[in-house]
């Protein structure tokens, strides 16, 4: 692929510790010009830290720097700030968007690098008052979008864009930089629909053909196989494998990532439960959740089953649990165990033994600044008066620290939550472990009915399997009815008995888990708005 003597990027013996805690050990790999490197590993394996070192992020310097050498075109470099890295031709697209919502795509793509024209005022007061050359801007952003190979509307304001297009705008911004040699994509497909992800992969191939090297971080392994020239697998701060893609498979990579065999659960586990009693009945539900509007959903959920709700992003599948649980404005009729549950009142749902694990871990799911104990025990304490000692004949309800500690410890063991102690703050855990804390919180409520929304979003393969297994076990052993909402069809098919597909804010159809992917695919696009 590369004819240069020196590859574009060489990482040599990179080591990094955070206050004595070794997170990277002897990282070595090389990346040639126009090569696409897939970087994968479980959460906490050190991928992000490595990329932060490469991109010269402040946090690395503040925590004592790193050791080892980074060579670009054979010359040793050291980036103290991201600006140095940008200068050297490295671009990075982060998981979180850094775009100005009120600006158009073009304005965002060329932000602070706009071509300018002189005017009278700027002649007098200096270049900072130059007029923007909109024609040239349009041309450059069009060129960048063209380079990317995915059509997005350059004139559209960011806040009006679907999430996928925001991602593409970020990529276009990096591509518009002439000196760009290496592009780092940190889980770019996590927020994309399958079709958009496909387009992104296509555009990565295009970039590589133009001689831009790409480091592609993703949890979706088939994407790595589809576009990457080689795969670097990390585990616990080590590079465990560095192989050409064509010599490997999803199974191999998974095995290397987790260091153990992950059996992909057979779809055959699904049960049929046609005679089951209806436990939750949703009639004509509408939910006003921005980006996930539910228009008219009627669903009957049978006691003891695991019902999956799938569908494309933005079609309303996330609105259903949020609406039923009263977190977004909703209307319609919801009956649980034959009794109507008032909408728009979270407390009433919780009182009726419904529980909800939100898809928004950081904003809704966790008290990031508090201990795991608080996170796990809080809802059960507030709703069911568990973990409270009654003093003075019940007048004072005193927090039972010991009980809270015990229940937290129980779930830490059961769900294998990696933490230093049950007193650790939730924000210090990795994504997968945070998700387990969210589950523990719901389990501690001992609900009769559980909504789980995107339980595996942004977590790694190992944690994913554990989370899904924990859900299944909870359903089988405690007889809890579970409704699981997920964007990943495969995951639903592994876990659920029946799967309802939401399209255009309506139920497009309900199929048994064993139905073929094509059938599901047809339902997903049937009523797309």
């Amino acid at each position, binding site marked *: 692929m590369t004819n240069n003597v020196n590859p574009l990027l060489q990482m040599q013996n990179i080591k990094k510790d955070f206050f004595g805690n070794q997170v990277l050990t002897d990282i070595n790999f090389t990346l040639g010009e126009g090569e696409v490197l897939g970087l994968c590993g479980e959460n906490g394996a050190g991928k992000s830290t490595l990329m932060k070192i490469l991109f010269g992020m402040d946090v690395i310097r503040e925590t004592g720097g790193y050791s080892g050498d980074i060579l670009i075109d054979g010359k040793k470099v050291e980036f103290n700030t991201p600006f140095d890295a940008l200068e050297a031709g490295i671009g990075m697209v982060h998981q979180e968007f850094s775009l100005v919502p009120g600006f158009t795509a073009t304005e965002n793509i060329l932000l602070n690098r706009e071509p300018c024209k002189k005017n009278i005022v700027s002649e007098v007061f200096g270049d900072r008052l130059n007029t923007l050359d909109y024609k040239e801007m349009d041309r450059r952003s069009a060129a960048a979008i063209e380079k990317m190979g995915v059509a997005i509307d350059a004139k559209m304001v960011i806040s009006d864009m679907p999430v996928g297009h925001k991602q593409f705008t970020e990529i276009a911004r990096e591509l518009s930089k002439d000196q760009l040699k290496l592009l780092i994509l940190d889980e770019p497909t996590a927020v994309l629909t399958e079709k958009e992800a496909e387009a992104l992969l296509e555009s990565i191939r295009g970039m590589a053909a133009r001689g831009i090297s790409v480091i592609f971080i993703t949890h979706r392994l088939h994407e790595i196989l589809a576009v990457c020239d080689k795969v670097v697998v990390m585990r616990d701060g080590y590079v465990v494998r560095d192989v050409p893609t064509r010599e490997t498979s999803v199974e191999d990579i998974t095995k290397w990532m987790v260091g153990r065999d992950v059996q992909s659960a057979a779809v055959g586990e699904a049960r049929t439960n046609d005679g089951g009693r209806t436990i939750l009945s949703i009639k004509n539900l509408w939910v006003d959740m921005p980006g996930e509007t539910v228009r008219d959903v009627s669903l009957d959920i049978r006691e003891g089953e695991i019902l999956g709700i799938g569908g494309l992003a933005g079609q309303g599948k996330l609105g259903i649990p949020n609406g039923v*649980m009263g977190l977004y404005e909703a209307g319609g009729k919801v009956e649980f165990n034959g009794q109507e549950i008032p909408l728009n009142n*979270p407390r009433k749902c*919780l009182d009726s033994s419904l529980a909800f694990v939100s898809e928004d871990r950081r904003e809704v799911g966790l008290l990031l600044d508090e201990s795991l104990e608080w996170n796990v025990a809080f809802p059960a304490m507030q709703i069911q*008066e568990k973990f409270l000692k009654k003093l003075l004949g019940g007048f004072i309800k005193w927090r039972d620290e010991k009980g809270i500690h015990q229940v937290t410890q129980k779930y830490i063991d059961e769900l294998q939550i990696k933490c230093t102690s049950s007193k650790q703050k939730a924000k210090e855990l990795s994504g997968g472990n945070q998700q387990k804390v969210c589950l523990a919180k719901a389990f501690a409520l001992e609900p009769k009915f559980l909504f789980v929304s995107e339980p595996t979003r942004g977590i790694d393969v190992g944690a994913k399997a554990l989370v899904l297994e924990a859900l299944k076990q909870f359903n089988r052993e405690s007889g809890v009815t579970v409704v699981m909402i997920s964007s990943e069809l495969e995951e639903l098919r592994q876990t659920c008995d029946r799967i309802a597909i939401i399209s255009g804010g309506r139920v497009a159809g309900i199929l048994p888990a064993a139905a073929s992917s094509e059938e599901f695919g047809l339902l997903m696009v049937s009523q797309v708005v």
Partner: protein
Amino acid sequence: MSTAIVLPEALKKMGFPRLIISGFLLVLFILTPFVGVDLPTQITNIINRFSWNAVLVLAMVPMIHAGCGLNFGLPLAIICGLLGGTLSIQLGFTGPMSFVMAVLIATPFAVILGGGYGLLLNRIKGGEMMIATYVGFSVMSFFCMMWLLLPYSSPTMVYGLSGNGLRPTISLDGFYNQTLARLLEIDFAKIAAALHISLGPLERIKIPTGSLIAFALLAFLMWAFLHTKTGTAMTAVGSNAAFARAAGINVDRTRMLSVIMSTWLGAMGILMYQQGFGFIQLYNAPNNLTMPTVAAILIGGASVNKASIPNVIIGTILFQGIVTMTPTVMNSAIHMDMSEVIRIIVSQGMILYALTRKAEGAK
């Protein structure tokens, strides 16, 4: 490779501003004998001022816990206390009874006005601190008029010539001056006299036991409240309101409760302050306590959304220590009145520092 300053973990935990202020206070203590200032008198002053101010600082805690930020609307709470104090005198109560009545009368005002204040703060989530500042100013200005217009008639309080309108400063002699401070007071001079021994400079130390016990009681109740179900809910609301809502907590009601608690504690705080200080101060006076009180809890290590009882105690001691020590020690040392300047730099600087920290946390 970078050379970042790595502080030992213990010092880091203490926080940089607290370190500077403690250091400064320590220097003042060391300087004391050299500039001819009497240390025992200074210590008595610090203890006294602590007993006056500690409850006001404690009043910051509930609102911080519920995520309503720093209570810049403290003048509202102080007005409730002032109403309690003046009405108690107006109704003819004297001695310790006037203090009890002041507490009883201030309470319904604190609940009602605090409730209204809470209602307002629930409508402007995210901008609490700015709105609170305006609430403080406007309530105070409104009461500047009311002190003149309300039909007070007690001769100890109204202007002598016209016979109506309250005076800016009202002496509490014969009412609740030192009511709590004198309760179980430890006066080393008296102890020495009773035992016929000399305790040397120690004899100049007096400890207002009653006031300290009253603070300890309120602080204990606050601590205990934060360990109850409702208190836990309050902390959760402040930590993440969306989480609390999803867990079935009525966020608005919890915030309202915190505001009422803050207002009531503030009213108690000003009554404590008055009984120690010996005067009721009206008109613009409430405003003079806001910034020092906010600064004190921040110096104690609280942030915009986390505060504990130790924060209150440490902060009040440090802040009042500086306020007491600088005029005497610094002035004797450099023969220039720097005390006010230093006090303002410390209090405003501390608030500014805390607000910048908040922005960093939000990132």
